[in-house]
């Protein structure tokens, strides 16, 4: 997996490319931990995400909890496969999805 990070003041965009599974989820967690301080507007661009496992969901969910306190978070360009996972886990109601 590759992760592209764009930070512009308090706006942060994270673009994971490939698969987020048990092996790669810690990388995403590290990227979030390193960049989230002071961010009020967080966007996950999931256009190039092929697969999202429960470990990856856990990272998104814990990030959502942090962003609930300091701003807002949204998921953009969610493809069908990832949307299925979000549907199944009931997380479509928790995340702001565009």
């Amino acid at each position, binding site marked *: 997996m590759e992760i592209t990070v764009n930070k512009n003041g308090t706006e942060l965009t994270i673009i994971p490319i490939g698969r987020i599974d048990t*092996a790669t989820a810690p990388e995403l967690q590290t990227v979030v931990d390193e960049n989230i301080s002071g961010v009020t507007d967080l966007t996950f661009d999931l256009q190039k995400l092929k697969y999202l496992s429960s470990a990856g969901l*856990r990272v998104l969910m814990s990030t959502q909890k942090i962003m609930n306190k300091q701003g807002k978070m949204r998921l953009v360009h969610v493809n069908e496969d990832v949307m299925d996972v979000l549907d199944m886990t009931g*997380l479509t109601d928790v995340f702001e999805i565009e």
Partner: protein
Amino acid sequence: MSKTKIIKSLAFKTTLQLFSIIIGVSLLAAVVIGIYIHNYLAAQFRNYAYEAALKGTAVASSKLLTSDHIGIDSYIKSGKVDENYENLFLNLLLIKDDYDLQRCDVFVPHEDHITYVISSDSQIAGEFLDKQDPYYGEEKDYVSNAMNASLDTELDPEKSTRQNLYTQNVKDGIKVVTYYMPVLDENGKAVAVFAASYSSDKVFQTMWIAVSRIIGISLAVMVLSVGILFFSIRKHVIKPIAQLTRSVRTMKENVKNKQAVSTNIRTGDEIEELAVSFEKMNTDLIGYIDENTRMTAEKQRIDTELGLATGIQAGMLPDQFPAFPDRKDFDIYASMKPAKEVGGDFYDFFLIDENRLGIVMADVSGKGVPAALFMMHSKILLKSYTLMKQSPKAALEEVNRQICEHNPEQMFVTVWLGVLDLKTGVLTAANAGHEKPAVKQAGDRFALYKDKHGLMVGYMDGVRFKEYELQLTKGAKLFLYTDGVAEATNANEELFGTDRMIDVLRTVENKPPKEIVMAVDAAVNEFVGTAPQFDDLTMLCIEYHGA
């Protein structure tokens, strides 16, 4: 075998290199010394020839011109010799021998020929021939130089004008240097030329003797030095190295016996340094091996404990089949294969009362020991609250509340929880973020059942779950699984997927639950091939026979 090889190669390499260096230096020295000696000898020989020429000139002057006043012309004209002339010839031979000359002559130069007066060459000795001369004919310039020279100035060796008077040429096949000197009469006028030739090959011969002596001596010195060096290398380098080699060979034993090595090499140089380093390495190695042994023991302990944990975890799941041998109204089979020693997936089933069966399929986020601990907690809570509340919705909400209370690692678990009324066939279920179940009604085929989904358990306190009912017909089958099935991945990173799963289920849909589970398990294994099992693989199948 290899020991001798080391000794050979080291000593011979060094010796060979030294030989090449010394031979190179000797050759260079021989050339330089040879050139020097040659130049020195050449000068020396020229001086001899010069002296010979001077002396010969003097003798010739006295014998030819002064004693009986006979004069050169009378000898030439009469062609007669007397005692005085014989005397001069003997003197000439003496000079030739004394000064190691090739030949010496007295002749009178003319415009286009020379007339010999006397010669050390026996072939023309005593003859007064007027002829073109092969010996001196080519060197007219030097001859005329000699005729015009004045003894006082130009012949003085200190004034260095002798170059005009000698030349080098090959004559009669021999390389010679010839000196030309004027023979003067009582008035100091040159009347003839005295020519003294010496062989410059002699200079080379003499030089060669000197140079070969130098080479001989240096070779002897060289062989001696290299011999000394050879034994010195053997003593100070090769023997300590061989000793070190023996220590290295026995290192394995020493380390095994935890015995420090002492090489006893005290040469006071780099080899001792190497030996000391080796001794230290040996000691360090013993330390590392100790450390490694401890770590291995620790790992074995963890492995043992994990093995026990696997047993405990597996033991917590109902794994005796048939599970309810005396019940004819349903048949159930389930299996769990963790990706690591302990897993986060689990299934459960239990009779709530005589007519109701609780069924659980769940997947904890993450893997290994943390997932297993969370799984135990979840499993106990789910069973307890299902028994207590008897409604999937109420049980999930209570379990969620309990888990959210203390969940610092923010772990969660997806749960499909159902209660099957065995009398009526009504299945009441709630899905907390879990995979969709596959259902096959009697006479129909297996298909995914699009049930209502709620959030997974453990994410957020106060979540409401949705409950739904499904009427199972007699002979209906329900297949539950975790994402380990749907997301099993092969070497090409392709997912097994629910479509493939449904296809497999349909091929065995008329078989009993055990065979259905085993068929899906086999299909997943075949699909994954050599790729490592990355997720837990858990399945449950129940067939409802009806009351």
